[in-house]
């Protein structure tokens, strides 16, 4: 089937210099995975009630490390490494200016990470990654996080410039699908992170430096959650890139529809930002009407995921039937169940079914009272980001890292990668299920071990917390396995050519309309929706602002 030109395309390598930039990001990502994962293990052990932290380390200190390193650092660095490689692979080698921007961004972010990490280690910033004003961290912590965000803008600019250059060189042609998706994700990230940057620069930094006495808590929370929800889509979209563009190639099939893939990404850009209130559903100071309006927009963002579910199943079924799969589900058996590059992300896709269902419940307006700030929510996002997204990132790293290092994924490593994903699924099923159930009983998230004054209700939670520790331990074994495989691919695997798989669009699919590349339309709608959802309640918050809050250091 494969023609010579297609074969040649398969062997297209990411330029060595771009590869180095991508790898630098991936190194930081996996170091974060180790430290952040270790903190996660310790948290589950502490909460089982059978373990106390040595050397005066605080529970909330390691919780801050876990959240910042895994939620912000691992994700952002891996995503940037992946996106740089994907743009270079499909839109062409970066120019030296674009690559320089990439490096400047990398170092600005990394300096920021070191600043923030130092303050957390010195116990000057146990405010968790959601900030929690008026708890007041050291100003260096806030400045460090500002560097991370500004660095990401600089690095992101390098990737966007490549896209602009490609469009100029290829007028009237739709851009390579994955490059288009990268640009959507960066647009989402930049628009969203403006919120948190505003809060840090104009509220938290001046306040922690002592230039102003007080901070407006509700505004800082609103700005944070304006950023905090699109943040989760910033994590998710690269996983969707792999599912839409890479997986079809790995299974030997075609992309079901280029247009539908672009449509779902555009919908994510439009609907994942004006929805932050669904994290603030039980807060005072915001009227039920505006909360409900954002709930409606939140459920709109489910639609692109519905589209994605269909496209993925269709891709699998078409390929499975091509290979002779019969009956309703016969095609499933024909999929490459021995190929880690497929199996590992596939498990991630399956996890997204309960993850998505839980997400709809969380966002359902007053129903949020059942689960708000219970450990159900922790169980939820350990399915979304720590399973769907993370396993997809692992699955992608298993070809991306050797592609960049000029090595290959051996049979043994492939087998170990599948075992790793199974270990992960077992550990996560135990931990996340326990979290979901005990969350419904009322057990809170982000809390140290406690018997709550001998409460009978809290006593019922302890067996589930023990289950979380068992799940957490299995997950940590999973992290060790993943790091072992990555170390092998970085330094020890045999030299060779590992493919960077990029799928082609099915001949059944329609020609892609150029409207998707019309950024004026999408950015305008995006901004109009944000203004629509936020302007009135935000003005209300400013006009009716109570006296602000002084800073507290309660840890």
């Amino acid at each position, binding site marked *: 089937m494969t023609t010579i030109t297609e074969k040649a395309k398969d062997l297209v390598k990411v330029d060595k210099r771009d590869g180095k930039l991508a790898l630098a990001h991936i190194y930081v990502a996996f170091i974060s995975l180790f430290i952040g994962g270790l903190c996660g293990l310790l948290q589950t052990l502490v909460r089982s009630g059978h373990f106390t932290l040595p050397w005066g380390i605080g529970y909330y200190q390691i919780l801050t490390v876990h959240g910042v390193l895994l939620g912000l650092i691992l994700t952002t660095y891996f995503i940037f490494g992946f996106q740089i490689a994907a743009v270079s692979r499909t839109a062409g080698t970066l120019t030296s200016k674009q690559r320089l921007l990439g490096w400047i961004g990398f170092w600005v972010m990394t300096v920021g990470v070191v600043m923030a990490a130092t303050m957390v280690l010195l116990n000057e910033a146990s405010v968790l990654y959601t900030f929690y004003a008026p708890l007041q961290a050291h100003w260096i912590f806030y400045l460090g996080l500002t560097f991370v965000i500004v660095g990401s803008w600089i690095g992101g600019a390098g990737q966007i410039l490549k896209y602009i250059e490609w469009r100029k060189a290829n007028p009237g042609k739709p851009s390579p699908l994955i490059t288009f998706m990268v640009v959507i994700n960066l647009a989402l990230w930049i628009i969203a992170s403006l919120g948190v940057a505003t809060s840090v620069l104009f509220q938290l930094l001046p306040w922690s430096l002592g230039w102003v006495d007080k901070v407006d808590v509700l505004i800082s929370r609103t700005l944070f959650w304006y950023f905090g929800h699109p943040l989760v889509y910033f994590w998710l979209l690269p996983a969707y890139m792999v599912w839409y563009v890479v997986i079809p190639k790995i299974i030997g099939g075609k992309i079901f529809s280029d247009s539908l893939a672009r449509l779902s990404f555009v919908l994510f850009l439009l609907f994942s930002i004006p929805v932050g209130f669904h994290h603030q559903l039980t807060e005072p100071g915001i009227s039920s009407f505006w909360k409900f309006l954002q709930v409606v927009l939140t459920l709109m963002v489910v639609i692109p995921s*519905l589209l994605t*579910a269909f496209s993925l199943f269709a891709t699998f079924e078409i390929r499975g039937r091509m290979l002779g799969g019969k009956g309703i589900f016969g095609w499933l058996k024909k999929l490459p169940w021995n190929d880690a590059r497929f199996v590992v992300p596939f498990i991630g896709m399956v996890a997204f079914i309960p993850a998505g269902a839980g997400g709809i419940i969380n966002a359902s307006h007053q129903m949020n009272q059942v689960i708000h700030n219970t450990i159900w929510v922790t169980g939820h996002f350990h399915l979304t980001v720590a399973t769907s997204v993370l396993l997809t990132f692992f699955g992608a790293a298993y070809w991306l890292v050797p592609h960049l290092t000029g090595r290959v994924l051996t049979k043994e490593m492939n087998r170990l990668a599948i075992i790793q994903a199974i270990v992960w699924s077992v550990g996560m099923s135990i931990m996340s299920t326990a979290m979901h159930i005990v969350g419904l009983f009322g057990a809170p998230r982000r809390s140290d071990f406690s018997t709550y004054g001998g409460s009978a209700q809290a006593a019922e939670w302890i067996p589930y917390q023990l289950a979380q520790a068992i799940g957490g331990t299995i997950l940590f074994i999973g992290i060790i396995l993943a790091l072992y495989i990555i170390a092998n691919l970085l330094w020890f695997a045999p030299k060779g050519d590992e493919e960077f798989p990029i799928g082609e669009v099915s001949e059944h699919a329609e020609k892609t309309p150029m409207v998707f590349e019309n950024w004026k339309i999408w950015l305008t709608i995006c901004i109009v929706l944000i203004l629509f959802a936020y302007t009135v309640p935000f003005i209300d918050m400013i006009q009716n602002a109570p006296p602000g809050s002084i800073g507290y250091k309660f840890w």
Partner: protein
Amino acid sequence: MSNKKEKELNLKGTLYSVGFVGVFILVTWFMAFYLFIERF
């Protein structure tokens, strides 16, 4: 032409699969809603 090809695609399995996803979402949502109604 492309329309004709489209009809030839057998996506029965996909339909059942997404159907399962949909039913799962509905069932879990109504379970949570029941819990909300049942509690004070």
